Structures are given as C-alpha cells and as structure tokens.
C-alpha cells in the first residue's frame, strides 16, 4: 500500500474511532437530543435551576400581571426601534464583565423575564445565565423573543415611551 494511502487510512480510522467513542460516551445526551429536548436551545436546565424557558403566551401573561421585571437583551439600537412596554434595555454583549448596579440591586426572589430577537437568538439565555450567576432565583427566558411578540400583534413601545 502506498504511504499516502496508509496515512489516509489511519486518519479515517481515527475518525471512525472518534465517532464510536463519542457515541458511547454521549449516549444519554444523544437520546435526549433525539427526543427533541434541545429544540429551543442547547441548554441544560438542571445546571441552572433558576432559569426556565417560557412560551410567548406565558411571557404575555407575566407582562399583563405587571410584577415581573422585563429585560430586553438585544442591542441598544434595536431596543430603541421598539420593545415590550416597560422593558428595560440590557444588551447581553455589554454585560460580559459585570451587570449594572440597578440590576444587581433588584430583589433576588423577584421574577425576571428576558428576551432577545427571537428565532435562534441566544443573548437572552446568555444574560439569564449571568443573572443566575448573581443568584437571581426566578429567571424566565421568553423563547419567542421580539419577533414572536411583534408577530402576535402585541403592544410595542419606542425608547422615548411612544406606543
């Protein structure tokens, strides 16, 4: 066998071995994926007991009750164009090091609803994990996001308070 072919066969064998080991080690995780557990996000709820993914309807209910703090995790420019009424802007990309003091001053037991663009956006979950790290105990991530909220024809607010 030529040297090049032998090296290629070694590489392919390494690839096959990796697939086998990966399948064996991750069998429980693969089963969960096949069951559709990570359809919304690659998120292991057990690691973050204070975080729950909620539907748009649940988010709307919390918004109507009015006791939860609503946080918009999108970029500030998107927030200015329109957001959930009463939502505050806290772009996830600006919170890598520390969260603002007014957020840190919030009661840890209160409900916080976080959202981002919608679809496959991850900034709300990223922000939720940071809030979890600050020991907030009830963080809800609205998976439908802003796109879902708009599509449902729910009320909007501009940054200057216009509706």
């Amino acid at each position, binding site marked *: 066998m030529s040297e090049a072919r032998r090296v290629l066969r070694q590489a392919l064998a390494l690839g096959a071995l*990796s697939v086998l080991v990966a399948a064996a080690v991750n069998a429980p995780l693969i089963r969960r994926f096949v069951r559709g557990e990570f359809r919304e996000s690659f998120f292991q709820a057990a690691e973050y007991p204070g975080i729950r993914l909620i539907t748009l309807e649940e988010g709307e209910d919390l918004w109507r009750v009015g006791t939860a703090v609503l946080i918009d995790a999108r970029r500030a420019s998107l927030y200015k164009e329109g957001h959930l009424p009463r939502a505050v802007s806290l772009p996830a990309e600006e919170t890598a090091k520390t969260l603002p003091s007014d957020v840190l001053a919030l009661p840890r037991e209160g409900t916080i609803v976080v959202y981002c663009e919608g679809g496959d956006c991850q900034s709300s979950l990223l922000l939720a994990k940071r809030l979890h790290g600050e020991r907030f105990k009830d963080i809800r991530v609205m998976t439908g996001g802003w796109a879902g909220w708009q599509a449902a024809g729910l009320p909007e607010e501009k940054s200057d308070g216009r509706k």
Partner: protein
Amino acid sequence: MVGNKTVLFVFRMILGGLFVYAGVVKVLAPLDFAQNIRNYDLVGRSLSFIAAVVLPWLEILAGAFLIAGIWRRGAALVVSGLLVFFIALTVATIVRGLDVDCGCFGAIDRKAGFGVIIEDLAMLYLGLCILFSKKGRSSKGTVPLKKANSPGSAIS
C-alpha cells in the same frame, strides 16, 4: 520542513498536548460547544450537535496518538485537516462580520479573530512538519529494504 528527531518529538508533544486539552474542555461541556458551533450560523441544530459530540473526541484521540507516537502521520493529517478547517471557518467569520466566541478551548471567552488564525497557522506548521517528516514514515515500508540489504539476514 524540520527533520530533526528531537524537534519533531517536541512538536508532537506540543501539538498533541494542545489538542488533548482542547478536546477535554469541550467534552466536559458538549452543549456549550454545540451552541458555539451553532453561533457560527453555518450549520443547523442537528449538525451542530453531532459536531459538538464527535469533534472533541477526534481532537483528543488525534492528540493522544501524536503524543504516544502511534499512527503519528495519520494523526498529523487529522490535526492539520482540522486546523485548515478552523482557519477557513475563522476567516469566513471575519469576512461575514460575525461576533462569535471561537469555541477553541471550551468556555474560555475568545472571539474568532486574527489572533486565533495566527495560532492555528503556527499549529498547522507543526502538524505539517510531522505529516511530512521522514522519521514518521512507516517502518513497514522500510523493512523489506532492510532485509534485502542486510547481510546478516541473507546468511542466516
């Protein structure tokens, strides 16, 4: 390319060690890595998951084989191939203007940028040195020659 045996040994240890480390940190958090891959916005959720499950083990095995000196050129081919892919991916990410964590060494926050490309190029150089080294070539290929040329084997 480098032909010195000791230098190639050091290259194998460095490259193998880096790949084992990169693989282990990803194996410890496969879902975080899956999200990293998904954030590149090149493949869907299923492929991101499959890659996140398999890729770390490919890194670990190729790295370990490099260190152990087993199938060293095959392992160097895998490592070099992965690095070419990582470089292309990072270049594409910069061109597309995406702001994503590279996911190179698990949870360590690093953006996919020029620094990552330079590191990958340095590692690629090590990988190619091992891949094209004469020392790494199979003993199988040289055995018949040795036998044919060996006076001892001909006499006995």
